């Protein structure tokens, strides 16, 4: 792999950028691998990367039914933060945030991770109490968090409406300064390139149609390009997790819903942090191109159509307008939907399954992007050792039998 650097940029400029090496190969699938990762989104690619880097497993294939990052990785609003309430979630997401902080250097690919700070607004007295509770819980876990007043918010975010006369006045916010945004499809490309450089085969346009098992053990996967054998299969397919679980003969406690996002026309810099509000329910940041990147909640009903319901768009923009009256005449350029797999406790399922050698990583719901490196890191450990890492052990499938849920709905389940 040619390293990217200022020198390589200069060198390639001299040859009119015609000699760049392709970022990753597109090999034919081999008949057999030591491990297969199903799903070529950020989480799957991160899994393959850490399998190779941390565990020395390089005879690995990533199977993607479409193109890399064409699913939720390229459809989210790119927010990265770790200010979760409960210990288990906070540890996992902060592991991820720490990996984000070194990711660009680690994979020699600029993922444009920008720690511009995330505000989670409070609009009611109960919001304020919950926010203080979360800020204190975060601090106890060593995660940076501070409570900021409306005056402090206004000083940092001049465009926001902090008038006490607003219908839902802003009474304060939590601020995580280490949080921010990253370039989502760059993350997929960078991880693909880094995994490929370590020998991982990335196979696009290869849909898994069946999971072959013998005596309760996985033996490989049926795909649109034939059978591929492997003693270990990790499935990271977000919204389609239930479909893959069906193929393996078990059920998951997830439901799939469309989650929408939209972007505005590009404008000059007006917002240099991420603003999220559970109460009026919307979140917004400004991309480097100048577009406002806006999202909110899922469609209430289950669906696999990658488009969202119109009333959700209306509610989302009403919320954004409430926070930023200055945006009221912005025109929206694009709107799209992705399918998210939601669990009853708004936390992921990351671990072993009833089938030996088959591992599932799903249920990230509306907030999976931020977890991309941490999820891959923990999932790779789980696959390599046939046992979860202590970071993801609490996120087992059997918590829905034991009742040991990690209820993140209050702190994190709504806005991402």
């Amino acid at each position, binding site marked *: 792999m040619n390293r990217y650097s200022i020198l390589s940029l200069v060198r390639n400029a001299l040859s009119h950028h015609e000699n760049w090496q392709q970022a990753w190969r597109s090999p034919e699938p081999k008949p057999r691998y030591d491990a297969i990762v199903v799903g070529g989104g950020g989480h799957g690619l991160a899994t393959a990367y850490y399998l190779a880097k941390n565990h020395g497993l390089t005879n690995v294939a990533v199977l993607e039914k479409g193109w890399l990052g064409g699913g939720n990785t390229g459809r989210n609003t790119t927010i990265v933060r770790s200010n979760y309430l409960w210990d288990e979630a906070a540890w996992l997401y902060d592991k991820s945030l720490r990996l984000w902080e070194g990711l660009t250097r680690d994979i020699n690919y600029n993922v444009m991770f920008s720690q511009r700070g995330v505000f989670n607004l409070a609009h009611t007295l109960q919001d304020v109490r919950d926010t203080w509770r979360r800020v204190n819980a975060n601090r106890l876990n060593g995660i940076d968090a501070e409570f900021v007043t409306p005056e402090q918010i206004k000083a940092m975010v001049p465009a926001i409406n902090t008038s006490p006369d607003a219908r839902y006045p802003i009474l304060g916010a939590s601020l995580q300064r280490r949080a921010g945004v990253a370039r989502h499809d760059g993350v997929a490309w960078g991880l693909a390139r880094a995994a490929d450089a370590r020998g991982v085969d990335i196979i696009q346009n290869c849909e898994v149609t069946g999971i072959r098992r013998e005596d309760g053990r996985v033996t490989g996967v049926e795909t649109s390009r034939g059978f591929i054998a492997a003693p270990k299969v990790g499935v990271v397919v977000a919204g389609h997790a239930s479909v893959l679980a069906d193929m393996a003969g078990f059920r998951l406690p997830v439901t799939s819903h469309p989650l929408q996002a939209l972007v505005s026309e590009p404008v000059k810099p007006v917002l240099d942090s991420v603003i999220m509000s559970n109460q009026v329910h919307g979140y917004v940041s400004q991309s480097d191109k100048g577009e406002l990147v806006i999202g909110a909640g899922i469609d209430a009903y*289950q*669906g696999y159509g990658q488009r969202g319901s119109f009333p959700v768009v209306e509610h989302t923009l009403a919320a954004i307008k409430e926070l930023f009256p200055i945006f009221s005449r912005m025109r929206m350029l694009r709107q799209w939907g992705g399918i998210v797999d939601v669990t009853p406790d708004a936390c992921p399922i990351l671990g072993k399954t009833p089938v030996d050698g088959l591992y599932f990583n799903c249920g990230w719901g509306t907030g999976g992007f931020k977890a991309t490196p941490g999820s891959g890191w923990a999932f790779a450990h789980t696959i390599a050792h046939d046992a979860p890492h202590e970071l993801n052990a609490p996120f087992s499938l059997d918590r*829905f039998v034991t009742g040991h849920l990690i209820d993140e709905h209050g702190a994190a389940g709504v806005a991402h």
Partner: protein
Amino acid sequence: MLQLECPWCGPRDEEEFTYGGEAHITRPPEPDAVSDAAWGDYLFFHTNTRGLQSEQWCHSHGCRRWFNVARDTVTYRIHRVYRMGEPRPGFDA
């Protein structure tokens, strides 16, 4: 935007309704008598079909009554609306 045909009020926009998830599931009559696995299955494990599935909806901003809908989760086409207590329709309609 979905339009649902409430059995009592006729066609209305989706915003008037509340979604109730999987239809035709029964609460175990004696929760203390069932295993944790069976109770967990009742509480948390619901159908998530890619295609036709039966769901409960409530006309919460109208007559506030519950009913069942057989809906395709990919095309969002509504195949049939039927009342609570009626059997699950054959999905050939």
